[in-house]
Each structure stands twice: as structure tokens, then as C-alpha cells.
């Protein structure tokens, strides 16, 4: 009989799809900060990969991360009367900055996770050359 964890993961697949546009918009905003406008095709692949990452996390971290992503999206309403993913670039940057400097640690951790993982995933998808390279330490 499949484990509970396996069954939970299967049930959560549709929920993950709901989160994906927000994941894509957060990555897009971060890439805009560091490189300029994101390539839509790469962004699409990166958002799938990011979601895969979140789903692969231990569930006691992955589920709160999904919930935080939804909360982050909703917090856009306070800044521009629309969820984050529908905001224009300047308003998105403001939301991100507010979370980055929030007094509450988990908000900062959320942004840090996307800064690291989101940009890594995006640049990896973009940079095919990266696949032929090493980056190891012992």
C-alpha cells in the first residue's frame, strides 16, 4: 500500500499548479533585478523546475513554502490592489523589497530562498554551458 507521504504528494499536484504563476512572477522579478527582462520560454521552464524543487523538499518545509508563496502573492493587494503576479514591475519590486527587509525572519527567509534557488534555476536553464561544468567542493 503506497505510503501516506506518497499519497499526500499526489494529492498536492493540482495545488502546485495554482502556485506556479506566482513562482514564475517572483523569479521574473528577481531576474529583472540582476540581469534585465527574463526570457519567457526560459522563465516557463524555470517555474516548472522551481515547483519541482519545492515539491521535492521535506513536506514540513515544502508545504509551508507553498503556503508562503500564496501569501506572498496575496500581499500584492496591499501594495497595488492586485495579487503580486498581476502587478506591474515597479510595484512587484516594492513588494519584494518589503519582504526582503521585513522584521519577521520567515519573510526574509522566503525571499532568500527564491533569490538563491530561483536565480540558480533560471540561469541553469538559460546557460546550457553550465551543464558541462563542475562546481564542487569537498
Amino acid at each position: 500500500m503506497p505510503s501516506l507521504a506518497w499519497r499526500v504528494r499526489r494529492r498536492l499536484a493540482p495545488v502546485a499548479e495554482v502556485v506556479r504563476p506566482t513562482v514564475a512572477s517572483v523569479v521574473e522579478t528577481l531576474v529583472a533585478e540582476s540581469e534585465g527582462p527574463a526570457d519567457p520560454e526560459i522563465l516557463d521552464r524555470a517555474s516548472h523546475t522551481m515547483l519541482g524543487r519545492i515539491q521535492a523538499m521535506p513536506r514540513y518545509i515544502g508545504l509551508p513554502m507553498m503556503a508562503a508563496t500564496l501569501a506572498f502573492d496575496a500581499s500584492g493587494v496591499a501594495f497595488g490592489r492586485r495579487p503580486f503576479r498581476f502587478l506591474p514591475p515597479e510595484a512587484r519590486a516594492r513588494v519584494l523589497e518589503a519582504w526582503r527587509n521585513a522584521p519577521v525572519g520567515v519573510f526574509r527567509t522566503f525571499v532568500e530562498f527564491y533569490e538563491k534557488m530561483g536565480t540558480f534555476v533560471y540561469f541553469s536553464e538559460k546557460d546550457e554551458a553550465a551543464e558541462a561544468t563542475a562546481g564542487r567542493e569537498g
Partner: protein
Amino acid sequence: MQTHDCDVLVIGSGPGGATTACLLAEAGRDVILLEEGAHLGLDSAPPYSIAETTQKYRNGGLTVALGRTMVTCIEGRCVGGGSEINAALCHWPMDQTLEGWSERFRIRDLSNRSLEPFRAEVERDLTVSSLRGPLDGASTILKAGAEALGWRSEEVQRFWQYPDSGDGPGQRQSMTETLVPRALAAGCRLLPDTRVIRLVLGGGEAREARAIHTPPGEPPEAIRVRFRHLFVCGGPIQTPLILRRSGLQDPIGQNLRMHPMIRLVACFDDPINDPTVGVPVQQVVAFKPEMTLGCSQAALPHLVMWLGGQGEALRERLANWQTMALFYVLVEGTTSGSVQNLPLLNEPLMRYPLNDTDRGRLSLALQRLIRLLFTAGAREIFHPYAGHPPLRRKLDANTLGDRIPHGKTAVSTIHLFGTCPMGEDASRCVVDSWGRMRALGNTWINDASILPDTTGVNPQATLLAVARRNVRHYLETV
């Protein structure tokens, strides 16, 4: 439910499990080797690519130990375990490390002297070699900076095989390149994609293992394996988890030890980062075992990952990313954490309370690294704490403070130990001096969880030698 029978069951095929399965099969035992991850081999994905982290890393590399500073713990999950994703650096333990363990945990007959024959076998079987060809850019920087400061640095040997003729790049000697094929040739049966959920216990022994076999693209199927003797080699996080899920309790999982690690990115005037060169091998060893300074070849995505949050500053520098390289500090953690099982989810809940001493060591190691990098010509170093401007002079290292602050920098670990320590101190040693469990008469543990404390050096060599020693003892005495 499908049932398999064998003489010896080995759970986990990392360096500990592969050594165990290989030596037992070659000694004529009927062995089954169960491995949760897939059987892929080294070439299934480019090193450190997204594909590799998906295929071979547990939780995609995103497992954390909770505490005021969260520590990302990285483990392999594939046939060969951590050896398939590691840098293959081979470092033998210092005398003082093994002496300290022996004294504190009352371990019998463990010293560099007693390990010598096993060390020779490891060096032969995994072709421990020195680098052929020139040092990579980051290693050259580290070496030059250390020389200028009068600190000892050295080229670390690797588990690496070069072609007999010519100067080819050679090949890392992971378990799928070495001991796993040998085990299979000697008749060991390998079941990959098979996760042991729990052991069925009775009469002071383990009777069978209940597992879920999930062939790629197919639904999971429950299986059971019956055995006479059992070796649990799931690694320092998973081994205590399997045992705790089976109903065993403390001290299993109580002594989680690690080498916490922080990375930083430095910029130089000239290109130093050629990711095609391969694994950087230089380490500053002057401060071992407490701290190690090292370097890492890094492709653009990895640099960007460690530069996350630099915004505009990053944009300016991306054009010249080959003038940047990634360096790390790694220290011996001085505190202990724990691994527990989250009921129903069957996942580990790990805690590691990075203490003041650990945070002080990390800060001091970072300050030393920064000093070294500026001495070696760094133009700019990205601050390891979020929200701080880049460092431009040696003096800027003072902004690090005496201890790294909680929650301001990414701490991770790739070296875990100690959750089932070996030794004769029955109050805290889960296994005896040769890996036999106190709680279960027919069960041994033979992975990094029995190393009772940090090694202060890259641990795989120590583990490989200790695992051989324990199998030899088993074959001679059981």
C-alpha cells in the same frame, strides 16, 4: 507482498554500504543491497546541474536542520550515495582526531596505525591520485595567498583514476565505478529504487525489512526482505530514521555532528574561473582540524546563486563572471544536534543548534579567508551576510563581527556524523567498537553515523577505512 531471502541484507549503497556489500559478497556471503535511489552512474547528468540534483540528491539538496540558523544538509540519494556527487577529495584523519574519539567514546583499537592496512586497500581500490596537470585558477589564488601569509596549504589527493597512457582528465572513482560493480560481480543482488520503511523486530533481533520498491514510471510496490544478518548503511540522517521508525529509541539519532560551511564569491582583475578545468584541489590546512579554507570551480548559475540579493551590483558584474570564483570555509562543529522521525510523514526532523563557538569559528575562518583573498589580489569580495555592501579592503573583514549572526548568511553542510556513535560507552554509543548494535544482536551499522564526532577533514577516506575494518572484524568473529 514479494519476499526476498538472503544471508546478509545491506541497506544503503553509499561508501559505507558499498564497502560492506562488496567485501561480504567477495567473502562468499549471499548479499542483497537495497538502495532507495536509482542506479545511474557518473555520466547520467553533468555535475552540479539541475538534472544531477534532481536525480541524485535527497530532496533535491534542500533538506535543513532547524535552529536559529538553519543549516542546509546535503546528502546523496542514488546507488553510490554521497560518493556519486562529491568532490572525491581524499584526506586521512589526524592522529589527534582518532585518539580523541577513542578516549571520549571508549573505542577499542582505533588509530591511524591500526587503520593502516585498510587505508592501503582503500588507496589501491579507489586509485587515490595526485592532480595531473596545472592547478585551476581558484586553487592557484588560494595557494598564492596562503604562501604570502605563511599559512600551510596543500593539494588534496582524490579518489581519481587517470588513463594509463596520455594526459586525459581522468575519472572520479565513486562507488558505481568501483565497489558496486565488484559486489555485483561477486553475486550481490542490488535492488535500486527501493526504500526501506522499517524493520520488523522480535526477540532482540531484526527479522525482516519492509520496503517500497518504485521502479521508474510505475506505482510503488511493497516488498519484504528476510535475512540472517543486517547492515544498516543509510547515512547519518537516514540510518537513525530507519531504526527509530522501527521502534528503537535514544540514544539513536541523538548525537548529530557536522562541519558547518559558508561560501563566498570573490572578484579578481583577470579571468580565473574556467569551469571546464574540473575540481579544485587546494585547501589551506594550517588551521585543521578546526577549520579548512577551500575553493570551488563555479559555473555562472552557481555564482548567481551565492550572489542572490545583490540586485544591481550583480547585473554590473555578470558580464565578467569569469573573473569571479567561489571559496568556502568549513569548520568542525562543536555542538550536537538530533534526528527524529516525523510520524506519518516518515521524514526526518533534524535540529542543530549552531552555538557561539561554531559561530565564532565560522566568523574567524571567514576573516582569514577574506585576508587571504585580498592578499592574493582580490578586487572585491561579496559580503557573506545579506544586505551588506561588498568588501573592498582587508579591514572590511572587521564588519563580520566575532560571531556570524543568526539568520543572515547561508550555512550548509556536506559532512555529517555521529547519530549512531561507536564505542564501549553504552550510555551513548549505539554500536560497539566494530559497529554491532547494542539493541539488536544480528544488526550492524557501517556508515558515517558511527563516526562519533567530526573528522576535521573530508570524511569519506576515514569512513571507507573504518567500514573495511568493521567488515573484517565481522568476517573473523561472527
